[in-house]
């Protein structure tokens, strides 16, 4: 055994990789609950790819056959229901894990320097994951699949000039058709998973270059022992591999309970309307995306013409504040010109286009987080009341917007979604100010 290892090691840097990323990768010793979700995300990625391959064995990407082939998997393929539910429940579980994983960064400032690239790669993963699940949702060719895809692809239509051509290019047809289904299949089972795997690999390589953050937001590399090992670090293997396995077991218990006892979770994980085949002539009575898209969907719907006045005031305030606090003359110029262009745009281009822009920005703005946050400390443990309050309000707003996205946009619901949209953007837009003036507590030298 030993000699076999040596033989391999002379030809492939097995030991080197093992040591660098596991046995001699020193992670802070104070990881808590929130640090499980990275490993769990890897687990979910593997499960989705694995169950997906087995679904592909029976599934047929053809508008005439797709719906029936999924029903066939559910009814006739031995254990087919299990594989299908694992994949559909898994998608929701994946998003729960990812949202908690991202929230951890907001708690402990993990997106801050020197981990900006870890964060950015994470965000690219997040966007790719949204594309992956969106395209996967078309494949069963249920009525919600069809109309959901119709709505999302039409978003691109709203882009001036290139929009119509772009959405035609995405569909491969003038309407959603067999051409669309077939290409979504190709992207869903081959292209995007491949990209995801590569991105996750890069995400971890980047993380291991800078080292993990921790609940105290302290750089453990700044306190090294005589042997060059961080005093507050412990080897990832065996300490965290074993700890993570416990998390995996607990997580799988929860996942299996949902999978076996409530795989559709009352329509939240698999919508009822998707158990009727796509009907080109009839939209489902209430069209709602899956829960993990609903906050952004609420923001999309909030932008009606009468909302433009509030958006104008909002960008005006942000512009004015930037104008007064910026020192650089270029920044000052941008702070004047951008709101003006936007306000003119709000009243000349269709509100529909701004809905699409708002939705896009609501996701993309996360990319800027490492630079919006100006606090001198990273972890919430040492921040003052302002950031804590802002983060608390943001989380509540995010959840409320998510709920409103599942409800018809009428009356009170519409008004709430419009208020929520402003709060959502305020969290990011005013962060440079409140994170800076917030009173912080002294950060200890070593992790606690």
């Amino acid at each position, binding site marked *: 055994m030993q000699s076999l290892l040596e033989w391999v090691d002379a030809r492939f840097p097995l030991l080197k990789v093992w040591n660098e990323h596991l046995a001699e990768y020193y992670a802070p010793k104070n990881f808590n609950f929130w640090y499980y979700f990275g490993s769990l995300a890897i687990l979910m990625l593997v499960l989705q790819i694995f169950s997906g391959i087995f679904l592909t064995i029976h599934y047929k990407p053809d508008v005439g056959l797709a719906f029936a082939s999924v029903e066939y998997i559910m009814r006739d393929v031995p254990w087919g229901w299990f594989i299908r539910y694992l994949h559909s429940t898994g998608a929701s579980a994946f998003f729960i894990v990812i949202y908690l994983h991202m929230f951890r960064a907001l708690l402990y400032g993990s997106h801050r320097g020197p981990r900006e690239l870890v964060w950015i790669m994470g965000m690219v993963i997040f966007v790719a994951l949204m594309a992956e699940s969106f395209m996967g949702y078309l494949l069963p060719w249920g009525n919600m699949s069809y*109309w959901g895809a*119709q*709505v*999302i692809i*039409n*978003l691109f*239509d709203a882009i001036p000039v290139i929009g119509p051509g772009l959405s*035609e*290019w*995405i*569909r*491969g*047809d*003038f*309407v*959603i*058709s067999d*051409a669309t289904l077939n*290409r979504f299949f190709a992207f869903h089972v081959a292209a995007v998973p491949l990209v995801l795997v590569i991105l996750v690999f890069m995400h971890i390589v980047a993380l291991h270059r800078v080292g993990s953050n921790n609940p105290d937001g302290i750089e453990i590399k700044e306190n090294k022992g005589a042997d060059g090992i961080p005093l507050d670090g412990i080897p990832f293997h065996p300490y965290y591999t074993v700890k993570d396995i416990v998390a995996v077991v607990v997580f799988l218990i929860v996942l299996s309970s949902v999978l076996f006892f409530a795989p559709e979770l009352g329509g939240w994980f698999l919508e009822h309307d998707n158990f009727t085949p796509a009907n*080109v*002539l*009839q*939209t*489902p*009575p*209430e*069209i709602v995306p899956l829960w993990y898209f609903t906050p952004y969907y609420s923001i*999309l*719907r909030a*932008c*009606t*013409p*009468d909302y433009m006045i509030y958006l104008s005031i909002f960008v005006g305030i942000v512009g004015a504040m930037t104008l007064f606090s910026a020192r650089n003359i270029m920044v000052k110029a941008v702070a004047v010109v951008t709101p003006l262009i936007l306000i003119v745009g709000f009243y000349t281009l*269709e*509100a*529909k286009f701004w*809905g699409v822009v708002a939705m896009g920005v609501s996701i993309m703005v996360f990319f800027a987080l490492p630079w919006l946050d100006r606090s001198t400390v990273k972890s919430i443990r040492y921040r003052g009341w302002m950031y804590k309050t802002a983060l608390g309000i943001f989380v509540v707003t995010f959840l409320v917007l998510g709920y409103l996205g599942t409800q*018809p*946009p*009428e009356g009170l619901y*519409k008004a709430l979604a419009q208020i929520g949209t402003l709060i959502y953007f305020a969290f990011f837009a005013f962060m440079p100010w409140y994170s800076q003036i917030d009173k912080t507590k002294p950060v200890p030298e070593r992790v606690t």
Partner: protein
Amino acid sequence: MSTNGVDKKRRRFLVNLTAGVGAVGSGFAVAPFVMSMTPSERAKAAGAPVEVDISKLEPGQLLTVKWRGKPVWLLNRTPVMMDSLKGLADILEDPESTDAEQPTYAKGIARAIKPELLVVVGLCTHLGCSPDKKLEAGAGAGLGADWPGGFFCPCHGSKFDLSGRVYKNVPAPRNLPVPPYSFKSDTEIVLGIDQKEGVA
């Protein structure tokens, strides 16, 4: 470090030139893949005209037919429905249908060749859902007692009147499109072929 007779400037020029030509070449190599995703010849050919028999369409009835993969509605409007179109100008975005959402022979408030027969593509101009038919006026439609009858899009709440004209302050920006159509006879229309001006 000795330059060993290497002309650095020239080397850099050649490297940049090679990289530049390579980039252009890669661009050309990508083109076929991008183009392969545009609608195929078969998809383009699929838009054949559709003939619809309207002889059995009673007043107040709505018929949905599929044309180019889209739902097209044919609504035989009753006199009461026609009356409901008047006096809505204040709450509509484009009451006279001046935007290019219909052929020139279908402008005005009725937006139809024969005023009572409405022909529209049943896809919301917001993001393309097919609105619900709420043809009855009044509170029964669940849209308030002053609802004059029309279409309500469940996706993001856009409203249209019985001419497919869009309300103000809803997400949809434009009236429902009127497809090109023409009368083959009194009881038969053809979707996809324009009416000759001045006929009918």
